[in-house]
């Protein structure tokens, strides 16, 4: 995870990004494409982690970009494009999570079936880690996914978590220890033959 200078919102928009927004507002199509490429991976990843569905994440990401660009197109003055985009993404995800939905299982079984027999230990470990992660609070899961898996800036993660940067860092540090503790519990509970060698606690 990397840290960088923050503005009053905790987000830092580079001069290059600000120029792209201004060019988009003037109607330049290439600026729109550049802004899309600049943020699409993170917008999708955030939605994917939160919604646990590729299809839902794609729909949310597409809608979030459209709304953010529409807002920027009609706005005069310095646009907080990144803040709009991330805020819209977060709200769309939360709206979707409030809707009744079918519970789908993660495709772990398919991964096991497709793997090389020599990868059994690695797959077993991954299954336990995912289970340990799933046992954590939603907030702990999300901060770990954003900061340690996706390796986002603290300021960007803080915005998505609706927290200060300092609170986000504290949350991350507690989440790491909670995950470590849960992993140790799961491996301690495992039958002797399945226990992972070289426990970390």
């Amino acid at each position, binding site marked *: 995870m990397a840290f960088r200078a923050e503005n009053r919102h905790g987000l830092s928009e580079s001069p290059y990004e600000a120029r792209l927004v201004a060019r988009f507002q003037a*109607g330049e*199509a290439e600026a*729109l494409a550049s802004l899309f*490429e600049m943020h699409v991976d993170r917008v999708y990843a955030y939605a994917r982690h939160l919604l646990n569905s590729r299809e839902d994440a*794609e729909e949310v990401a597409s809608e979030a970009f459209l709304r953010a660009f529409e807002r920027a197109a009609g706005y005069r003055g310095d646009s907080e494009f990144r803040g709009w985009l991330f805020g819209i993404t977060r709200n769309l995800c939360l709206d979707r999570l409030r809707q009744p939905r079918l519970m789908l299982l993660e495709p772990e079984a398919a991964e096991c079936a497709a793997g090389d027999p020599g990868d059994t230990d690695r797959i077993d470990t991954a299954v336990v*880690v995912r289970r340990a992660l799933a046992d954590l609070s939603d907030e702990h899961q999300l901060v770990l996914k954003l900061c340690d898996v996706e390796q986002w800036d603290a300021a960007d993660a803080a915005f998505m978590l609706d927290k200060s940067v300092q609170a986000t*860092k504290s949350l991350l540090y507690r989440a*790491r220890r909670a995950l470590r503790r849960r992993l140790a519990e799961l491996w301690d509970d495992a039958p002797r033959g399945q226990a992972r060698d070289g426990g*970390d606690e």
Partner: protein
Amino acid sequence: MRCEEAGALLDLYLDGCLPLELSTKLDRHLLRCAACPGELRSLEQTIALLREASSPEQPSPSFRERAAARLQSQLAGHLRSTSKDDVGRQWILPFTGTEG
């Protein structure tokens, strides 16, 4: 440096965010301490296991193209307001060459 102080710095150390002076002090402590190196290793290992187990699922190959087409359709009015004659053809190109 005491273990309690060292423990509070381990995450910053792992994230590469510890100022040089504190990092040097922590390095010295880690060389002398029996417990803290294990604490550091277990945190490193936890993060490594998490990354290995959580490889994010990529969007479908057509996602960028579909999202771009939707933006093109919905925002055509705004983009046509420029003086360029062939805006639509120009701005779809950057998306189609970057399939994820």
